[in-house]
């Protein structure tokens, strides 16, 4: 059977999905809720394309080809819808891609990473990061207006992490590092930042929860997303040139809640886009609860054993990942 994609006729076989044909032809269609070889059902609508004969917008990931289809993947209308679906997902995505402290540091120090090392007792590595950023023994923090502490998420909960104090302590107490670490320059850091999802303000109950539950030595919430490297939502948002969502930000799930699924697997509901990949591909594991905007992906405690690490690979965002 034959269909047309972007004005080119092509031979397709029965049962193929539009996205498969397109990718075979080298036409990139972004898709979040789709993972080749896994069960999926259209949800995110980022893969939307226009079928010209019927004039309808269809999800490329799950629409099977049909004789005479005429698909358009790149028109302004399609791009606009794609961008809107991303923006809508982002408006329900209360999470920081990068920790604000790291993005504002004039020396390009990845403060959140450094604090992570500090909090887990890997002080030498933490020291190495600092050394690479500041050319020790001159500590960059001297005379710095510490925008990191002003930007700190913890500040909106109770008080900011004393970042300068931690850095000072590390620099003073420890031998110059033997570990070689090349810190990113500020420019490199900026380039690496694809797109910044924003957490927005904590609600009162979230503040209470965080106050009680976060007990790291530094007090750092570690708000940077651990799954950001493989996050497709971030990638596509950057590609679509989205700065931030135009819509009201709200979510039915509490921000900054990290659940331990197993020793290594972590689940953060607030970053979930409810695409259902983990639901459809686990047997009595993840499931949906409620409906509409309040719909959540949940994992009953009793079913945690039914979740495999492969799900972390297909999660399109940083909601499900292997923890550090």
């Amino acid at each position, binding site marked *: 059977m034959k269909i047309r994609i972007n004005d080119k006729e092509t031979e397709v076989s029965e049962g193929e999905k539009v996205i498969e044909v397109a990718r075979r032809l080298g036409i990139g269609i972004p898709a979040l809720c789709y993972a080749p070889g896994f069960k999926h*059902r*259209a*949800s*995110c*609508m*980022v893969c*939307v394309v226009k079928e010209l004969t019927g004039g309808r*917008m269809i*999800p490329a990931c*799950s*629409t*099977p080809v*049909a004789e005479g289809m005429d698909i358009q993947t790149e028109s302004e209308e399609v791009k*606009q*819808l794609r961008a*809107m*679906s991303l923006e*809508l*997902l982002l*408006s*329900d995505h209360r999470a920081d891609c990068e920790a604000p402290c790291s993005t504002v540091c004039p020396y390009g120090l990845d403060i959140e990473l450094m604090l992570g090392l500090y909090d887990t007792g890997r002080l030498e590595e933490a020291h190495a990061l600092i050394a690479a950023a500041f050319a020790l023994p001159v500590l960059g923090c001297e005379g710095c207006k510490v925008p990191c502490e002003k930007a700190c998420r913890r500040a909106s909960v109770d008080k900011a992490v004393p970042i300068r104090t931690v850095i000072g302590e590390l620099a003073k107490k420890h031998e110059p590092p033997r570990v070689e670490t090349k810190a990113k320059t500020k420019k490199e850091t900026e380039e690496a930042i694809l797109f910044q999802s924003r957490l927005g303000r904590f609600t009162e109950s979230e503040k209470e929860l965080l106050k009680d539950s976060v007990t790291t030595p530094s007090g750092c919430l570690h708000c940077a997303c651990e799954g950001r490297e493989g996050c497709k939502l971030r990638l596509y948002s950057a590609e679509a040139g989205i700065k931030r969502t*135009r*819509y*009201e930000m*709200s979510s039915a799930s509490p921000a900054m809640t990290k659940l331990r699924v197993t020793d290594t697997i972590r689940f953060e509901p607030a970053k979930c*886009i*409810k695409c*259902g990949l983990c*639901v459809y591909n*686990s047997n*009595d*594991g*993840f*499931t*949906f*609860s*409620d*409906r*509409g*905007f*309040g*719909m959540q992906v*949940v994992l*009953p405690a*009793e*079913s945690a054993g039914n979740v495999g690490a492969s799900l972390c690979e297909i999660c399109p965002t940083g909601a499900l990942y292997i923890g550090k």
Partner: protein
Amino acid sequence: MGCNCSNITAQEREGMLVRTDAIIESVGTSRESVIPLLQALQNEFGYLPHAALERVYEKTEIDRAQLISVSTFYSQFKHAPSGKHIIRVCTGSACHVKGAGNVYDAFIRELRIGEGEMTTEDKLFSVEKIACLGCCTLAPVVQIDEKIYGHVQPGKIGEVVEDFLSLAEENEKEEKRGERKQVAGEIRLGMGSCCIASGCGDIYKELVEASRQLGIEIHIKQVGCVGVCAKVPLIDVVQPDGSVVRYPNVKAAEIKEILHQHFKAASPLKRLKNSVLEHLHMYHTDTTWDNVVWKPENERMGVIDSFLTDQRHISTEGYGVITPLNINEYCAHGGFEALRKTLASASRSEVVESVLKSGIRGRGGGGFTTGRKWEIVAKSDSRVKYVICNGDEGDPGAFMDRMLLESYPFRVIEGMLLAAYAVGASHGIFYIRAEYPLAVTRIRAAIEICRERKLTGDNILGSEFSFDIEVYEGAGAFVCGEETALIASIEGERGFPRQRPPYPAERGLNGFPTLVNNVETLSQIPFIIKEGDEKFRAIGTKGSKGTKVFALAGKIRHGGLIEVPMGMTLNHIVEKIGGGVEGDARLKAVQVGGPSGGCIPAELCDVPVDFDAFDRMGAMMGSGGLVVLSDKDCMVDVARYFLEFSCEQSCGKCTFCRVGIKRMLGILDKITSGKAESADIDKLEQLALNIKKASLCGLGRTAPNPVLTTIKYFRKEYEEHVKGICATGVCKAMVKYVVDDNCTGCTKCAKACPVDAIAYVPYEVHHIDTAKCVQCGLCIDECTFDAIHKVPLNKADGAII
């Protein structure tokens, strides 16, 4: 889901498990039985106890993931016990425009229910909102357990609760006396859409009192209604011989006389005993449940005449004559003739051809040509095929399907049989909302009667054709009106719509070709086959053939259920059938098609009832709610109302519907609270257009219609709201109540105010404390001097609304 039954004893738990096991035993253990199983558990326990659910995991194929997914999706299921009595405040569209919000608030306030709670502290009452009770002409309506109260005003909450409690007390006594009681007869008191309106409570009390005084035990039954809502209150006296005498516009003072007339005091019991007991027996065994409201009525006159004259009854043929479960009466009116004729002499393809030629289009909303669907299913050579009757009518402000199922069960069944024969199906399912218990009971009973008459089962009427029908109860999800979601729900999943194509007609239930037709569509089929497609085609317009059933409600003089030929104008319906807008208000718009439809402004109401004409206006036929709006209604509020409904009913599967509608609602909230800027209107419109384009199923694709049509036809109102003015005073955040100099200090308003916002100061001009005022409107209703007004909040000396 945490444990919700921590405080039960080990013994109670043991008993619970025994009961759970019995239910599992009787309902089944397969994954498909999850919804019926949960329904049975909830019926048994009033909610879904944790211990019972754990037992389900243990004993059935249903796992945790499936059960959580399903039990949290459908709104019928409760995970915590509720109060002894449940107060359901109808928030259907007709009730909404008549102030249901205030009524709900009043219950919460009067019963002192805490914030975020829904049950009183003593666990006596739970208050919840319900999408639509289908009593739109009585708006606002409240149902307490089984009892329905119409025209409930915020100030009458106390009376309603009191009345209910005294009734409940009497019922308990009755039950205790029940065994020794001998009943002389039955009186049916019209409820539902017509009768309760003016003083039904008084009539009821009078009936109880009079029967006691006369020593006549009568069964007072509250029944539903099929349309004529203007002749109220209305009672039917069922005589010992089963015949019914009707009394329209009855008054409390006449009750005794009526009782005397029918149940003479001269020891009637013995004389009647046998026949009455027989009648009761039949009633209880449900074999020939003769619970009819509509019997021949010769006294049609005046209003009833004008209400009925321009109607055309096809789906509702036998209106006012046919007893729902009397198959002989149905047959006497030509019932099952179409089936007989077909089985005797027509081929399957001839039936499909006939339906195709009739031009009938699906009545469920989309307006897809019915014959085409039939053709596709008929073509398939699959061994198994299904026919599903879609009775999951969930639109607020619509109750046509319920009425058809309750009043004409045999016609719908005949339609299904014809469809099944035509497409070659062997198995049929009636999918009916669980909120329609009477419809479920009637259809079940009717199927049973058909089986006895060889109209279903093997070799129907001696032919080769065999067909079985079962009933499936929906569990409360509007989206299940979408055919693929409906199928998912029958298969035991949450009601997520599925990718189309493949269409259910190709691959539906359990992967087999499935014909899904709406109740009203099926009810028109017998006419087409019996009378011929030419005759059907002759009714209606070029693109829309036959008749359409509507629920006419809102600000209309004579609301009710109507069936009109396609092509009749909305103006004709409103003016001639409905008797015009109620009170001294002017027609502003007609909302058609509920949450997927739109608002058609008064100046365009010469539009004919026609699928395509409605589509062109941005509205949609939908399933057939007609809510009449007057100049006292705020169009932005109406749009917000429907959008909120769609937001609550969105399944959550796709981004545009799940998040997009929520964001639209956010913008509308800003607009109705006066916090928006004019760019927000464009943003709203843009969002709406894209949601319409890119949502996966019909719910999302049509949900923006109420907003888009109101922006299109009433943009000025949106702009006024942005400026902080709600000209009708409906949007509470934008008005305040003030007392002017006409006040004589009579203190009526102060006494009426439920929140003490008006100080009791006799002979002084009263003052309303805006901080306390909840804007329930009671003071305005009470004031005899027209001294209380709503004024715009942001203007010191704003114009009076």
